[in-house]
């Protein structure tokens, strides 16, 4: 049976039990139609060339519909230390787990609904509609966060993928709406037990209103056997700012499809993505940032380090629409090969339809900087230690600007665990 046929039959078995309050039956059927019409992606499609799609052949798509208390308690040990001042919403296998969550309800003007209806258009847009549609077709629950004008709130959203097997797919689905001048800090994490092989399909849709600011950190630490697709869509209004700092460490196969649209004059996005892989992991990102209004700005940084036989890929595609006069983009994409069988492919891509823009990019793939290494050697630092130091510096370079110190430390610890041998000894000293 083809993956698509399995998907359709899995949907048929579960469709009757999926809550219509989240998506109507017709809505789910329509979304399934979108996926069926487009087919699942294949390696021959340009934008999917570097993703590891082999797991699709064996995936099962049926989600969990209930969670029991004992399983929820077991998941507790996987949760990181809470971040001070953040409300916490935990979803286990895609279902809200109230006992693990902490909603102080303190902040006014921000409403949060863990079983919100999903918009029919959720995740459906030009870059790639399929995985967003998959969420609409299958998600039993969806989280919605709405901040009214001037509201402020710090929110942690944790998706724990715990169960494996045929009825264990999870479909984290989140809608975030920041009203005018609202300020949200969102920490979104995807977690799993160290060796677990789970399937998750996450979709997140942000609308950021005029002069609002959303600072979003995503950390993906799924189990070593996990398969993870995620789709992020952001619409950024006039004079609004969106920072997206993402860190990916887990999963056997992970793919991010991102489409951010700078829709209002003066909208800004700062996107930084750090990836550290080992063994045979594959992490692929296709990020489209579209400048659709005047005076908009993008900064995009990528650091990917591939050890063992793993491979990292990043395609940063920037589009300057005819209306984007006075806009600027800067891309710095770097990868580092740290294993004999490792692979890396980083590609900046520019598509410009107006003259009056500035777009700069730099991309490097390969080895540690020889000048830096010699400088360290010339101070008596051992070669192995110097190499470890530079690897560490490479990897933590982007994380340094995450504005939540406790989270930064958690991420650095996770990085340090990624390092082995001499690298690990050096990293432990530096955390």
């Amino acid at each position, binding site marked *: 049976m083809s993956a698509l046929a399995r998907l359709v039959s899995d949907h048929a078995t579960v469709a009757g039990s999926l809550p219509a309050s989240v998506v109507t039956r017709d809505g789910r059927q329509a979304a399934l139609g979108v996926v069926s019409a487009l087919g699942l992606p294949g390696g021959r499609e340009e934008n999917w060339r570097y993703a590891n799609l082999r797991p699709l052949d064996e995936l099962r798509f049926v989600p969990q519909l209930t969670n029991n208390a004992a399983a929820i308690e077991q998941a507790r040990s996987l949760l990181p230390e809470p971040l001070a001042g953040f409300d916490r919403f935990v979803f286990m296998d895609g279902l809200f787990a109230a006992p693990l969550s902490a909603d102080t309800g303190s902040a006014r003007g921000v409403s949060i609904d863990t079983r919100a209806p999903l918009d029919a258009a959720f995740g459906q847009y030009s870059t790639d509609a399929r995985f967003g549609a998959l969420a609409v077709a299958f998600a039993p629950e969806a989280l919605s966060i709405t901040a009214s004008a001037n509201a402020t709130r710090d929110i942690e959203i944790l998706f724990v993928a715990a169960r494996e097997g045929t009825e264990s797919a999870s479909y984290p689905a989140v809608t975030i709406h920041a009203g005018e001048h609202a300020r949200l800090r969102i920490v979104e994490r995807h977690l799993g037990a160290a060796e677990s092989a789970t399937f998750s399909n996450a979709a997140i849709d942000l609308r950021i209103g005029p002069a609002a600011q959303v600072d979003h950190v995503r950390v993906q630490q799924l189990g070593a056997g996990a398969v993870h697709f995620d789709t992020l869509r952001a619409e950024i209004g006039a004079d609004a700012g969106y920072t997206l700092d993402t860190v990916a460490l887990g999963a056997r196969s992970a793919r991010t499809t991102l489409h951010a649209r700078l829709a209002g004059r003066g909208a800004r996005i700062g996107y930084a993505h750090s990836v550290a892989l080992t063994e045979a992991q594959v992490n692929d990102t296709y990020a489209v940032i579209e400048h659709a209004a005047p005076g908009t700005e993008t900064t995009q940084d990528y650091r990917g380090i591939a050890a063992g036989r793993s491979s990292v890929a990043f395609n940063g595609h920037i589009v300057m629409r005819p209306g984007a006069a006075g806009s600027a983009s800067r891309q710095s994409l770097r990868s580092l090969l740290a294993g004999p069988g490792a692979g890396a492919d980083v590609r900046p891509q520019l598509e410009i339809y107006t003259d009056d823009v500035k777009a700069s990019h730099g991309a490097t793939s390969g080895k540690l900087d*020889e*000048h*830096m290494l*010699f*400088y*360290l*050697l*010339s*101070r*008596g*630092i*051992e*070669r192995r*230690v*110097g190499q470890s*130091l*530079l690897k*560490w*510096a*490479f990897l*933590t*370079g982007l994380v*340094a600007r995450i504005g939540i110190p406790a989270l930064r430390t958690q991420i650095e610890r996770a990085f340090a665990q990624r390092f082995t041998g001499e690298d690990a000894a050096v990293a432990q*000293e*530096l955390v």
Partner: protein
Amino acid sequence: MLKIENLHVTVGDRKVLNGLTLEVPTGEVHAIMGPNGSGKSTLAYALAGRPGYEATQGRVLYDGQDLLAMPAEERARAGVFLGFQYPVEIPGVNNVYLLKAALNARRKAAGLAEIDAFEFLEYVRGKMKFMQMDESFLSRGVNESFSGGEKKRNEILQMLVLEPRLALLDETDSGLDIDAMKIVAQGINSLRGPDRSIVLVTHYQRLLDHVQPDRVHVLSRGRIVHSGGPELALELERRGYDWVLEASAA
């Protein structure tokens, strides 16, 4: 201390040093001057062991040891220090970490135990005070976003912390303001002593006003073509290089 005999060095496919001979006795300060592109930095790099700077002929003895046979990090641990003409920025590795690791590497080679963390901070703070550097530099990335002058001062700070036996300072005086020049000169003078040697690569007399060299050498086209006492630097400043080069060509 340092004995260079007929040294030939190739960088890429380019022969840069062509039979350079130079001796720096223990306890002395020597200045090397010479036109742009004559090979001064190449000499400094070759002595420090930079990869890609290949000695095709000749030899270099450091305290009687074959310096060219040692990897760069071993040379440093044995007491050779290179002050870079263009110090490298290493974001993500902080200054204090590098200073401590470098000092401990040097101590280990000398058979000493690692320095106590508290003692180390006191020690470094003292040196920073001497160099009139703010302590905030310690927590910054190595040379990261330092100004040109701050980078040079940081090189001298590292030198003072490591107390090398042979210091090779490649244009440490370039890009320094008047006060910084004095501070750097003080740093160099404080290291001067009967057990150490210092090689200053410089284009200007100004540094040498503060740090009197024992000898001055002119490097041209990859060889030492003329040597003299401290008065040679003054003469070069006045007359330029042409007369030396003409005389040596003759």
